[in-house]
């Protein structure tokens, strides 16, 4: 029996009307009515100022908004832009919308966008986040131009962040993905990125869409598939990153989406990463990523307490995941007072690698493995914050670089663990 298409007839009809395009901007949404109008205007302005002659479309993949978000996306007129931005449109700039499900899913949203890109033969595409409150028109060009005009296949962003923002990226995702895959991509998991038509088509054809559930970290998988597929990748500095105010992030959910995705790719990608011995910088445009240094209150005491409690309560699970030496060392530091507490980089890297190997072996439920990492990450966060409390931007970068090198230095340890499980 033929597989039912995940694209609705109505969406297909809209795509037929749009026809072939040069530029495609994907905009996944879910209840973003408060901000989406200005974001779409900014995107339109970015397209018209950066690519005035090119055929472009904005594809809104909506996860069942109940606040009228899709209507706002399609209702924004270029004419609303003109007086303020003085942009001028040579040709029709389309904005179309489709509801892919009744609840949000980054997987289904990206799949919808990639399918549209393929059907419209888009040459260069970008996915923009409706959560970015300070998006600027220039972001469109920064993410698209390297693809459209320089032949890159993937453009990941770099941002100016506070030194204590994005700690999961700086302490795990960036250093580990870099050590394993050999390319220094700072934001391998980003809600904003640009990609070429061929890369999108390649990823659309991969068998990663089965369950369509949240938590798959599909953006990270996309980046890693570009690396393993030897596509041309670069980074583009976008400036400061600000989010629309939402409820506090759920660490376990974040770990599932990012670390879970990273761990799950290691098995199929083993032939690629196992032979990588060093990392190379990715070409980067638009300058660096200076950190913000203004004071930021972090509840270190709470972090350490959650670490110690976790080590104690999850000991039986850790016995399945960690080596005896690593577990013993974690138990030792868990008993330290706040002033002495220190989670050294080497121990952190060994911890992560042992988690990755256990994930591969599925010693227990993979989801439990990911959840168990949460208290340990909090302990590592405590140390990172303590070490960098008074550090300058350069010093923070140096410390992150040292951690990266530690991940690279200990990579043979991961290989050893991996092979022992085969």
């Amino acid at each position, binding site marked *: 029996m033929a597989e039912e298409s995940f694209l609705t007839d109505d969406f297909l009809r809209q795509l037929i*009307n749009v026809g072939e395009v040069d530029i495609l901007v994907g905009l996944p949404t879910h209840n973003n009515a408060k901000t989406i109008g200005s974001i779409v205007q900014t995107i339109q302005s970015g397209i018209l100022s950066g690519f005035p*002659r090119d055929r472009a479309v904005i594809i809104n993949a909506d996860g069942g908004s109940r606040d009228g978000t899709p209507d706002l996306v399609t209702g924004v007129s270029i004419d609303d832009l003109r007086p303020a931005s003085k942009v001028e449109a*040579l*040709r029709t700039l389309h904005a179309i919308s489709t509801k892919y499900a009744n609840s949000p899913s980054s997987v289904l949203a990206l799949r919808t966008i990639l399918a549209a890109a393929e059907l419209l033969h888009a040459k260069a595409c970008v996915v923009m986040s409706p959560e970015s409150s300070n998006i600027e028109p220039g972001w469109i060009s920064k993410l698209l131009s390297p693809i459209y005009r320089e032949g890159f296949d993937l453009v990941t962003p770099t941002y100016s962040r506070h030194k204590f923002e994005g700690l999961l990226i700086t302490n795990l995702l960036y250093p580990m993905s870099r050590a394993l895959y050999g390319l220094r991509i700072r934001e391998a998991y980003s809600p904003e990125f640009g990609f070429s038509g061929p890369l999108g088509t390649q990823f659309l054809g991969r068998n990663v869409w089965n369950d369509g559930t949240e938590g798959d970290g599909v953006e990270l998988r996309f980046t890693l598939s570009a690396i393993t597929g030897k596509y041309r990748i670069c980074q583009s500095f976008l400036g400061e990153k600000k989010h629309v105010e939402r409820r506090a992030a759920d660490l376990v959910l974040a770990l599932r989406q990012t670390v879970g995705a990273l761990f799950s790719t290691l098995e199929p990608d083993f032939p690629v990463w196992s032979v990588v011995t060093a990392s190379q910088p990715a070409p980067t445009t638009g300058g660096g990523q200076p950190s913000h240094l203004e004071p930021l209150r972090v509840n270190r005491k709470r972090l350490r307490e959650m670490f110690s409690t976790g080590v104690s309560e999850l000991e039986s699970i850790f016995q399945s995941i960690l080596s005896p030496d690593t577990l013993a060392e974690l138990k030792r530091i868990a008993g330290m007072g706040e002033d002495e507490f220190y989670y050294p980089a080497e121990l952190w890297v060994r911890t992560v690698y042992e988690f990755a190997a256990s994930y591969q072996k599925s010693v227990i439920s993979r989801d439990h493995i990911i959840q168990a990492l949460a208290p340990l990450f909090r302990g590592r966060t405590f140390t990172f914050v303590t070490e960098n409390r008074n550090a300058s931007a350069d010093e923070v970068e140096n410390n992150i670089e040292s951690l990266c090198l530690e991940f690279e230095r200990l990579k043979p340890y991961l290989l050893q663990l991996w092979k022992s499980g085969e």
Partner: protein
Amino acid sequence: MPLSRDVLWYKDAIIYQVHVRTFRDSNGDGIGDFQGLEEKLDYLQELGTNAIWLMPFFPSPLRDDGYDISDYNAVHSSYGTLEDFRKFLESAHERGIRVIIEMVLNHTSDQHPWFQESRSSQDNPRRDWYVWSDTDTRYKGARIIFLDTEKSNWAWDPVSKAFYWHRFFSHQPDLNYDNPAVREQMWNVMTFWLAMGVDGFRLDAVPYLVEREGTNCENLPETHEVLKELRRRLDEKFPGRMLLAEANQWPADLRPYFGDGDEFHMAFHFPLMPRMFMGLKLEDRKPITEILQQTPEIPPSCQWSLFLRNHDELTLEMVTDMERDYMYDSYAESKTMRLNLGIRRRLAPLLANDRRRMELMNGMLMSLPGTPIVYYGDEIGMGDNINLGDRNGVRTPMQWNGETNGGFSAAPPERLYAPLIQDPVYGYPAVNVLRQRSSEHSFLNWMERIITVRSSTAVFGRGSIEFLHPANHRILAYVRRLSNEAVLVVNNLSSTAQAVELDLRRYKGSIPIEMFGRNMFPRVGDLPYLLTLGPFQFYWFRLRRI
């Protein structure tokens, strides 16, 4: 075929623009003439045209292709005599073809006796027939039109030791329309030709007749007063004759030239033409619909005049800077193809000699609201010669057959006023009337067919337009209506096949009948009407309620 008595005849006209010099040389001197043009009237009748617009044929030093007139009441000796013109006019009328002639009101040649007298002394009675000044600093707000050749709108006259005003070339001094004697004289000139029987005038460069300090000296109320006065006198003495305005302006600025139906009968829609080319290149209807939506309503007795190409460059004055850059990059990559603010090319080379594009553009020309003008030679897809200076590359001899001089003249080739197109693609051996006449599917025969279809109904010339807004932006669709008659026009601007769904609920129950083949299409119902169109294809459907 007698001329129709309808005073609104210009609404149903298919105008053929030609310079007598370029069409047919009857006496073998290498220059086209009125006897030659008369010989070819049957051709124009067969083509389906029912009006001819003649470019200037008056005595002239020919430094601007005749737009520098030195005698308004005669025919340039190269083209024949007044008697030849009269005979040509009579023959045209016998075939139901009206004749519109050029009238350059704004300026004369500096060789015109009026200017010679005017410059001769400050006391000469005709001194005030032109605009003189002791300085070249007046009217600073007026732009320079011929940017490539002129640095100022003032020129120093060493004879009278003063500056004279000229909006075009410096050898074309502007007449002073503040002087009643000038206005009277120009009406006398018009009367001379009207009495002979000409059916209308294309009035050249009308926005510039009057100058006022502190303005851009264009479209001034005083200019409109002059024009209204001419129209009033025309209607009084020669009812049924027509005035066509050449005013290269934005639609809103053009509108006053129609007045309340008491100024011009027709005006060129200059901003539409480049946008048709732009829409075709972009494969997007936006430029076309946008400018037509900006086009104001005109009085019922008035009409827009539409064209694809003419004797001038494809003017890009009425586009934005961004649009102009796009047009240059799209249609005139080589700088030699550019002139002033425009592109000096013919239709076929502009469209890469693509038959489908040429048909689509002519299809739009014939179906959008207005009276179409076909530039001579474009009906056979003639090429151009960009190696000839100024705009002469689009003014080469008409290509009648593959024989010597393309059948244009029996003179030795070196004596022709301009060389024929000779390149392998567009040269006269390949592109000529005789060859296309003998081929059933030639472009010429197709042009004849579309003119026939267009002329089969008054809806195109007189009907209203209602744009449809299908989601497919590559499709330009509209319904032309006149009383009970409705014609649906669907144009695919894309180089690829397209599907389009049209909201035709208003015409539910109608049977679309394709006007070229007369075939019926499925009846219009409640659902969106689905059509598929091949690359650059277009349909004209008569929507019949039976």
